[in-house]
């Protein structure tokens, strides 16, 4: 090892002082640099790679191609992603990799590499892929990567009760995660031991999936997590990691790779683009009785979490209302697009765009108030939902009430001018979400927190979970400081280090705060038991003064007695059956959003003037952090609703691989967001808390689309709601004003 292993996890203060170190910041000047050569075609056979000229470039040390990774595939559910491809399946698919002493040699080496391609027919839309005679993967002739079906209730019986069906087809766009820190990794080598340093939200699970591959090379692997500059679901396993690992293993040198923004945008991951054909049926009085979803999800070239995201999108939203019967029929389709991946909301962000617009439409058609329609159909504490979710604490009614009040007040205030050109509209939408998912990985659904007294004083808290900026460090520090009655400056936190452990599942399904706080409480119980035992043994007074007891234990070389690992495993949860039935989460979170928007009818531009977000996240533990999650999620949701989209041309090229053309919200778009926490007490949660990571983004697009309808009477079924799309929709029937009118 060239330098000591990193790193205590950066605290909030270290990040605030710009002292946090991300993967790219810790690459030593002596590290070998690597880069991947990416296919410029959406679908092509690599006929031949001539690396002689590359290897002749001074400073170039090695070249890897698909042959070096023969038989190795990545993928958590379907293993279908090669590390380097002999058949490239999207623009940006890696076909070779070069390692060199310095950047200039690296660039020259890449330029000198000759790759002969045989271009194959490609399919970049769901329809093209389904109609194409060309299989994107040999093993999948119809390009359908996965399917899912669920039927609940007595459809014959409910059909006769439905007085009105509302139905439509909705489309959501592929959106790059666009985290600010591009993917970067450093592999440090010490003989057979490889250490991968990279920002990932699931270091233990990533290590688990890489270890069998690395073991095949005769090496061992540990993963260390420095500061992470955003993930939002994307920073999981990635071929670039394996490329660097193999270079390091072969060259016996430290190897680093930092993706450019462009490479990160074309070969990172995206939110899965989805098409929903959805219908909801109600009685004339407004009782929601049935819902049917047909879903096509664009998997992209490889599967990653595509199957799980598809299932979630197909059914999870159903659990918000007391439907008597639901049906879902979903397909996951391979296309020659960048692979899709989980992204904050795990498919429910997409399905909510459809569901909550239909609920609104239903209210309008039945001439009912959209809030009252929701209130009379939502689930309540004690319910078992149509998919078997057991609802505990549930503040959705209060969320809807408070949003409804905010909207009425604002409407009465008439703060915005309503004139020929600018139209004002109000919208709202609701959601339900889980905290962890027992079905996600059937092998493991626990969290561990380890406490150890350090020889130099203080207590180290270790966990396999990570800090993405959501407050994991804060939650752990707060919990341990409270439970052990020690001051916070006595505590240090180490997260996501597989060498020192413990194992962690990573940030999924808004589970981290809930799971680590529960595990930390358990660790503190065990720690206190250790203290009690030593106290009796040392014949110290009761209650002991912790610092004195620790000092005594140190002198007696008994600090090991105070090393404990707490565990949390949710109770009452099951792995759902094949149709997705079962209580997947210990508790559920809820919320309702409302907004006031303005539409410029001359241009179609939507401006969000005011936003209200009411959340039931249980009892709030970390108020600043929770507020930040809501505000940030809403702003990200506004991007998803209005501007963000991976624009892929017919030839498969991504047209906007950067922030300039894939416009994420900036300071200038910073809509005021009022956060309303509806306090509930979740018996199963830590100190009554639930969680807040993903939920704030889920209802935003539907909320804005409902407001657009309120403003201009036009419903938008496709994301993003760009100015052009809305202008065209407003002007389609020719009866509305043309841009040159007046």
């Amino acid at each position, binding site marked *: 090892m060239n330098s000591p292993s990193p790193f205590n996890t*950066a605290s*909030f*203060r270290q*990040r*605030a*002082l*710009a*002292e*946090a*170190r*991300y993967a*790219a*910041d810790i690459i030593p*000047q002596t590290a070998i640099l690597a880069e991947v050569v990416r296919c410029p075609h959406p679908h092509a056979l690599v006929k031949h790679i001539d690396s002689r000229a590359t290897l002749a470039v001074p400073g170039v040390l090695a070249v890897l191609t698909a042959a070096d990774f023969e038989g190795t595939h990545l993928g958590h559910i379907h293993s279908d992603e090669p590390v380097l491809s002999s058949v490239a399946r999207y623009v940006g698919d890696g076909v070779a990799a070069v390692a060199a002493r310095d950047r200039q040699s690296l660039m020259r080496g890449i330029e000198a590499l000759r790759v002969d391609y045989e271009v194959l027919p490609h399919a970049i839309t769901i329809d093209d892929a389904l109609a194409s005679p060309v299989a994107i993967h040999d093993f999948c002739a119809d390009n359908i990567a996965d399917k899912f079906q669920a039927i609940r209730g007595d459809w014959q019986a409910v059909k006769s009760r439905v007085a009105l069906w509302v139905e439509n087809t909705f489309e959501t766009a592929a959106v790059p995660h*666009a*985290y*600010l*820190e*591009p993917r970067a990794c450093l592999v440090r080598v010490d003989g057979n031991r490889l250490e991968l340093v990279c920002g990932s939200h699931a270091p233990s699970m990533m290590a688990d999936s890489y270890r069998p591959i690395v073991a095949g090379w005769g090496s061992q692997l540990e993963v260390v997590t420095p*500061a*992470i*500059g*955003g993930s*939002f679901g994307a920073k999981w396993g990635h071929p670039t990691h394996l490329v660097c690992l193999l270079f390091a293993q072969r060259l016996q040198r430290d190897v680093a790779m*930092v993706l*450019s*923004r462009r490479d990160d945008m074309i070969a990172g991951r995206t939110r899965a683009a989805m098409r929903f054909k959805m219908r909801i049926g109600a009685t004339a009085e407004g009782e929601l009785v049935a819902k049917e979803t047909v879903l096509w999800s664009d998997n992209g070239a490889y599967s990653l979490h595509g199957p799980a995201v598809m299932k979630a999108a197909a059914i999870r939203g159903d659990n918000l209302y007391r439907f008597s019967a639901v049906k879902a029929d979903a397909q996951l389709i391979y296309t020659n697009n960048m692979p899709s991946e989980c992204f904050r909301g795990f498919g429910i962000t997409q399905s909510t765009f459809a569901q909550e617009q239909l609920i609104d439409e239903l209210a309008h058609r039945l001439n009912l108030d959209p809030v009252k329609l929701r209130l009379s159909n939502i689930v309540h504490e004690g319910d078992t939902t149509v998919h078997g979710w057991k609802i505990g604490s549930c503040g959705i009614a209060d969320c809807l009430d408070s949003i409804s009040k905010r909207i009425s007040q604002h409407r009465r205030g008439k703060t915005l001018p309503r004139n020929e050109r600018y139209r004002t509209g109000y919208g709202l939408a609701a959601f339900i979400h889980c905290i962890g998912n027992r079905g996600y990985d059937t092998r493991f659904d626990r969290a561990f927190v380890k406490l150890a007294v350090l020889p130099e004083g203080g207590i180290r808290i270790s966990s396999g979970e990570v800090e*993405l*900026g*959501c407050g994991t460090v804060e939650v752990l520090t707060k919990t341990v400081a409270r439970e052990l009655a020690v001051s916070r400056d006595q505590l240090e936190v180490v997260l996501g280090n597989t060498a020192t452990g413990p194992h962690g599942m990573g940030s999924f399904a808004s589970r981290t705060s809930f799971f680590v706080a529960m595990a930390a409480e358990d660790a503190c119980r065990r720690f206190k038991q250790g203290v009690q035992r030593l106290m009796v043994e040392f014949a110290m007074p009761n209650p002991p003064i912790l610092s004195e007891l620790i000092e005594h234990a140190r002198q007696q070389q008994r600090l090991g007695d105070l090393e404990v690992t707490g565990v949390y495993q949710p109770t009452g949860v099951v792995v759902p059956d094949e149709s997705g039935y079962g209580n997947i989460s210990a508790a559920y979170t809820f919320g309702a959003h409302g907004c006031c928007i303005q539409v410029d009818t001359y241009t179609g531009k939507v401006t969000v003037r005011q936003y209200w977000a009411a959340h039931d996240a249980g009892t709030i533990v970390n108020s*600043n*952090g929770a*507020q*930040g*999650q809501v*505000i*940030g*999620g*809403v*702003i*990200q949701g506004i*991007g998803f609703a209005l501007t963000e989209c991976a624009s892929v041309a017919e030839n498969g090229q991504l047209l906007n691989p*950067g*922030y*300039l053309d894939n416009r*994420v*919200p*900036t*300071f*200038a778009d*910073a809509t*005021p*967001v009022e956060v309303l926490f509806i306090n509930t007490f979740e018996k199963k949660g830590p100190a009554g808390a639930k969680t807040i990571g993903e939920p704030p983004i889920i209802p935003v697009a539907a909320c804005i689309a409902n407001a657009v309808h309120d403003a201009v009477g036009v419903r938008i079924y496709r994301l993003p709601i760009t100015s052009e799309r809305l202008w065209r929709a407003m002007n389609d029937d020719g009866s509305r004003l043309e841009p040159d009118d007046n």
Partner: protein
Amino acid sequence: MSTGVYLRVNGEEHEIPGQWLGRRLLDYLRHELRLMSVKEGCGEGDCGACTVFVDTEPVCACLLLCGVVADRNITTIEGLPKDFRQSFAQLCEKHGGLQCGFCTPGFTMMSAWLTGGGTETGKDSVNKLMAGNICRCGIYQQLKKVIAELI
């Protein structure tokens, strides 16, 4: 070999080696001077994570070649007054002004510029002046509070 071309970074004079004259200031600061607070988010001047001062103006270090800023004064976070960094950090803690923290260096520099009298600003224009810095975690509202309290 001497180039006779100098850069002053955080008050310290550095002679720029010949091979660096035509390369990015961002890389020089990070790779040669190891000033790791200067982040590369996009390399295209869109995100503002690599903001530094050239004399008194905030610029994206990814858009400048070292030779272009010869004889100029470059300031990174490491060169800002300690008490400013401390109060910025405290206000971030108070208002929840960061999440992942990758954009924080750029916002720190911009806040130092706004509060240092570098520009004439009314409070309304903060949104526009800050629009060149992206926070993908989306917490502009909290950053706005931090800046408002600094001004």
